[in-house]
């Protein structure tokens, strides 16, 4: 008899909810066939069987959650006897062909797993089992400091392949920072797939169950707020030349074989990327006993969705031209709205931009999107009376506020970084050179 366990589908996942059993007790199951649909932090995933046989017993009914590694069903021969203790209580399953190791110090070994291991001594040796992982998957996991031992491989022989690591990373990175909105005007119409929570009236209030996305937002931003001491530096940027440049670029870009419209946000992405390249001490993660300085620059852009927010990433933004950034941000925003983001679109961000400019917001502060160390909150561009050469004239101004994690970045560094951003946006030809 083999135990099907709740797989770990991402670093941030702690439990999964069975939305639907695709196979039912008594059904013949082949290795690789979908058994059930499971709701995790962000996405719904069909879990596949790793064994062939008959689905003998469902341990976790539809609508119920189970922690990672807990048994959710038993597969065996049609006439095989059910283990007595499971037949009787139907609770968490035994460890069988698990790849979950206990005691690896990462905190992933849940209490359930530990309990099971102590109850059942024999399979503990399986903890020594070799994990099959492709070289590139191992490399990516190590690069992002992801504990791949917790990942369920989908390759041949259960091998963990790159895609599995990327999916796990996407889960870890999926949810982001502060309030934010995309650089796209239209309201979000199409929610990402997933059941809408059912609101329940309780007295004079309505209780709305958390979606997986809302839970993840709450947990990660809560952690960020508690763990990293935020401080803020604000700068006012004259956008006159930036607007002129944008107009010229767009006159050119609309005649491009692949026409594209460049937004202010796209130019800000480019400016931030170049500033990070020049000041790598801002492109860092705080890792308790060390700072990790990233050699590549990947800019996340917070995109508001009806049910929460998500931060797709423009990779290597420093190396991309402005038109390329515009195309990529259009693609990502569209994919975010239609729930079609690829796992790789969500991983690797080293800095996030949150832009509420279209909501007539003067300025605001944003919560850092871990493991990043800084985030830029961008307000509206507003005609403002300013003094130039002793005369009051009207100029377009934009307030931006940098939130920094003081564990990693000091005030002067943040100020110099913002100064560089300001310079790049006020003398914007540099964005094209």
């Amino acid at each position: 008899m083999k135990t099907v366990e709740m797989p770990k589908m991402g670093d941030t996942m702690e439990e999964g909810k069975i939305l639907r059993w695709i196979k039912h007790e008594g059904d013949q199951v082949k290795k690789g066939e979908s058994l059930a649909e499971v709701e995790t932090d962000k996405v719904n995933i069909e879990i596949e069987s790793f064994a062939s046989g008959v689905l003998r017993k469902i341990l976790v009914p539809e609508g119920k959650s189970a922690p990672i590694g807990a048994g959710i069903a038993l597969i065996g021969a049609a006439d095989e006897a059910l283990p007595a203790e499971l037949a009787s209580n139907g609770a968490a399953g035994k460890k069988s062909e698990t790849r979950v190791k206990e005691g690896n110090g990462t905190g992933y070994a849940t209490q359930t797993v530990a309990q099971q291991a102590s109850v059942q001594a024999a399979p503990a040796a399986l903890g020594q089992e070799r994990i099959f992982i492709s070289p590139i998957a191992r490399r990516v996991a190590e690069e992002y400091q992801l504990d791949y031992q917790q990942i369920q491989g989908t390759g041949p022989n259960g091998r963990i392949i790159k895609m599995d690591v990327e999916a796990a990373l996407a889960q870890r990175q999926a949810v982001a920072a502060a309030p934010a909105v995309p650089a796209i005007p239209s309201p979000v119409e199409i929610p990402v797939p997933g059941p809408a929570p059912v609101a329940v009236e309780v007295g004079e209030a309505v209780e709305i169950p958390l979606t997986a996305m809302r839970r993840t937002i709450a947990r990660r931003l809560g952690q960020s707020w508690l763990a990293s001491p935020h401080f803020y530096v604000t700068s006012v940027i004259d956008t006159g030349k930036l607007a002129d440049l944008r107009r010229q670029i767009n006159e050119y870009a609309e005649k491009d074989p692949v026409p594209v419209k460049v937004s202010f946000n796209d130019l800000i992405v480019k400016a931030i990327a170049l500033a990070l390249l020049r000041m790598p001490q801002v492109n860092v993660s705080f890792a308790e006993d060390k700072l990790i300085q990233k050699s590549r620059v990947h800019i996340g852009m917070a995109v508001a969705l009806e049910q929460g927010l998500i931060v797709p990433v423009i990779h290597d933004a420093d190396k991309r031209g402005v038109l390329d950034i515009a195309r990529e941000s259009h693609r990502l925003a569209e994919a975010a709205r239609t729930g079609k983001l690829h796992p790789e679109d969500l991983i690797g961000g080293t800095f996030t931009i949150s832009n509420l400019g279209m909501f007539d917001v003067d300025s605001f502060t944003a919560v850092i999107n871990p493991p990043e160390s800084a985030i830029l909150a961008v307000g509206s561009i507003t005609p403002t009376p300013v003094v130039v050469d002793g005369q009051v004239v009207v100029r377009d101004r934009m307030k931006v506020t940098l939130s920094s994690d003081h564990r990693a970045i000091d005030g002067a560094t943040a100020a110099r970084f913002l100064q560089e951003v300001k310079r790049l946006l006020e003398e914007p030809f540099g964005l094209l050179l």
Partner: protein
Amino acid sequence: MRTLTYRDALREAIREEMLRDERVFILGEDIAGYGGTYAVSKGLFEEFGEKRVRDTPLAEEVITGAAIGAALGGLRPIIELMTINFSMLASDQIVNQAAKFRYMFGGQPEMPLVIRMPGGGGAQRGAQHSQSLESWYAHIPGLKVVMPATPYDAKGMLKAAVRDPDPVLFIEHELLYNIKGEVPDEDVEYTVPLNRGEVRRQGRHVTIITYSRMLHVTLQAAEDLAKEGIEAEVIDLRSIRPIDIDLLIDSVKKTNRVVIAQEGWKYYGTGQGLAALIYEYAFDYMDAPIQHVTSADVPMPYSKVLERAALPNKNDIVNAAKAIVPAALVRA
């Protein structure tokens, strides 16, 4: 650009090189009055005469040995062996003489020798005349082995081979002579380097490395794969030795998966040689084991049906790619 057959592109290359350099001459069996077994040298005897277009006895060792002597003496011979299968009769000349001279005489002599010969199967020539032996020669330091797949490359690489100071084995394919492709106009002078592969199709899911006739089969397979959402990157190796390893590694870094499609046999063949290099230099980028698409491990059958079954085909390539590209990756 004009459209030429592979055969005509070869003839143009020979003719242009003979016009450019009076030291260039050709010799082989039935290449003069008859115009060559595959009609590559048709008309050259009439244009250049018997001094520079010479028929030989049916004796591959003699043809090759004579050419080696001529090359040492300062001429630039192009010899035609009727098929690579007959080159075994000249293997001592090729491996022990042509490949070794420069090394054994302190780098003093050049060996500007070109050996043209078709290899491969598919035309019902039977077990003795259908072999792909490029890996034998590619094993030997001192030789260059090239296998162009298109008329453009056939012309450009043959001209480069004639100008090269070292022995070049220029391996053609009987089923390529009639294929057509774009070739620059006659007044456009060009050569194609003997050490560079070429990306024939861009893709991100899997790299398919191939060469010679199998390039065309692979490109069809890539079309089929594209219909299922699998974006294959197709690399035409062009040169079997030296190997353009940087090109391969760059592609592997992008796709993390490799299929090698070649007409020769699997064991100790070019595919296994390439696979070993890829594992050596790009191990950390691999997401799946390398797949090999090759001929069946048997002497080539004469029967048309069996020959077709023994040769690698489009579906073999499609299936090899699908075996290592996860469906979920393609959906993503």
